[in-house]
């Protein structure tokens, strides 16, 4: 992932549904013209809308509509490249719909050539998914990085009941995974995105459950008399790190999911919790109160009897860390004065970058391509989900009413 300079002047959000706020710091966006797909006018405008929003939300694209253009070619032979060049269009996307399947092509205006030809086979009633696949193909072709429109986000809502929800990365297409009268916290995806682990209080005490998304089958991760919380899957999906309370204090363990063997990682009288795995699974980061206030520590799993190493030093509250997917740094919750904000630190820099400026931001979760962070905010006491991209765009997700919190981003699903 390339480091993009983040301009930290974020004005207040303005809302309707999905609000896109691209800050002035955005560097040269890719300028893309998307022509209506031929063959199905209704479906085309639905797809166009979703694709255009997906690209804009990344903060890296400026999208031209047909009406902004000088000429509308209806096939490859008719493209007048100069008509696009004059408007500084970098890429042109055109396509055909045939029976719910889409063939689309991406043209590089400067090179005057076709750089991609892709077919996406649709399935009935999954037009959003179709649009997300096309968006991800376009995004990947142009940026060289896999797109995340076809990924999903888990989160928890609270109205009369608590619900564990899953939705598309744009907040649409919400579905309920679990409904309970008792709190649900800390949802976490398995690396193959087919299972989720979470903490449910349904038995009267915090316990970790593992649930298959498609079948609804679920089980307790570990049978134990005391509380269990804070599940995180190892990158290979074979282990789950957990916080156990059986020792009279919060300690981090690794559970082997195959044989249910437990390995204790921490041993300290202060709180140790919120474990997360490095991208290759060789390190575990966690929050510990051992210095007197919550700070982030790292444990090297390859070393025998390794001592936790403190890795956060600015301020008196740094918690719930997660690694960037390329292992170049970490994202975490940082308190400055009385405000809780989302912050980032690259390992090769000796300062932190705060990404948000509200009062009560929490639960950051990073997209699988490392370009976007989704997190929970409080607006007028109400929980909502917001996102910030490393290119400086900010947005909020249009989720259902009720307090929304605890977002967790899936891996790639495509």
């Amino acid at each position: 992932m390339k480091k993009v300079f983040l301009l930290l002047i974020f004005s207040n959000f303005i809302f309707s549904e999905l609000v896109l706020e691209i800050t002035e710091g955005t560097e040269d966006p890719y300028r893309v013209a998307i022509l209506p797909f031929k063959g199905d006018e209704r479906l085309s405008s639905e797809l166009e809308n979703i694709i255009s929003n997906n690209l804009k939300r990344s903060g890296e694209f400026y999208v031209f509509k047909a009406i902004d253009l000088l000429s509308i070619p209806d096939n490859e032979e008719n493209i007048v490249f100069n008509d696009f060049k004059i408007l500084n269009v970098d890429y042109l996307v055109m396509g055909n719909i045939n029976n719910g399947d889409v063939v689309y092509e991406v043209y590089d205006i400067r090179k005057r050539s076709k750089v991609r030809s892709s077919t996406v086979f649709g399935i009935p009633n999954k037009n959003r998914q179709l649009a997300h696949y096309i968006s991800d193909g376009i995004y990947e072709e142009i940026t060289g990085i896999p797109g995340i429109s076809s990924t999903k986000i888990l989160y928890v809502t609270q109205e009369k009941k608590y619900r564990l929800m899953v939705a598309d990365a744009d907040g649409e297409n919400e579905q309920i995974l679990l409904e309970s009268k008792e709190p649900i916290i800390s949802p976490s995806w398995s690396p193959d995105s087919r299972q989720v682990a979470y903490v449910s209080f349904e038995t009267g005490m915090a316990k970790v459950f593992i649930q298959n998304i498609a079948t609804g089958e679920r089980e307790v991760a570990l049978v134990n008399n005391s509380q269990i919380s804070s599940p995180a899957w190892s990158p290979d999906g074979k282990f789950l790190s957990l916080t156990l309370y059986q020792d009279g204090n919060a300690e981090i363990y690794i559970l082997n999911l195959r044989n249910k063997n437990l390995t204790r990682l921490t041993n300290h009288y202060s709180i140790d919790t919120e474990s997360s795995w490095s991208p290759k699974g060789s390190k575990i980061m966690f929050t510990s109160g051992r210095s007197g206030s919550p700070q982030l520590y790292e444990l090297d799993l390859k070393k025998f009897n390794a001592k936790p190493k403190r890795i956060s030093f600015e301020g008196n509250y740094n918690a719930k860390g997660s690694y960037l997917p390329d292992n170049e740094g970490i994202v975490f919750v940082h308190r400055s004065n009385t405000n809780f904000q989302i912050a980032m630190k690259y390992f090769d820099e000796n300062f932190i970058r705060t990404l948000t400026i509200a009062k009560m931001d929490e639960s950051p979760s990073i997209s699988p391509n490392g370009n976007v962070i989704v997190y929970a905010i409080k607006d007028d006491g109400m929980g909502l989900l917001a996102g910030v991209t490393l290119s400086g765009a900010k947005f909020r997700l249009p989720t259902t009413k009720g307090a929304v919190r605890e977002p967790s981003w899936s891996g790639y699903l495509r």
Partner: protein
Amino acid sequence: MIFSKFNVSFLFVILFLSSCSSMNVTEETVYSGDVKTVQASTNNEDISYDSQAVFANATIYFDFDKTNLTSKSLQTLKSVVEALDDNSQLNVVLAGHADERGTREYNLALGQRRADAVSQYLILNGVESNRIITKSYGEERPIANGQDEESYAKNRRVEIN
């Protein structure tokens, strides 16, 4: 069970065929993303607030990010110990809570430490440990919903029931 073979509807194929030198050609099929909704059956073993807990019902409050008992709390706890001494059948559940500031998992651990602090006091004062259950709700069950110090102070508590 959970780890059995996965639903075949997730079949999605991505073919990267390189044709001419610099053009990517791909083919893929949208996956269904089917979801099954589950209802949690709450089998809550909480002791009901108005039946058993007549004598030992109390709430102990704490400072921000702190788990130590204040002198005011000790007064309350003394009467809880007396109630437990007088009623040997009585058991207590100590449920620790935190205010909403800070992360949820850290607050869950903080709530547990608060419940443990109360538990230790009771045990030191002669209450048998098998009469005590401790647990935490972290910041998940506030009793005051405001975003101000007054509400936060009410939420940093251990409920004795």
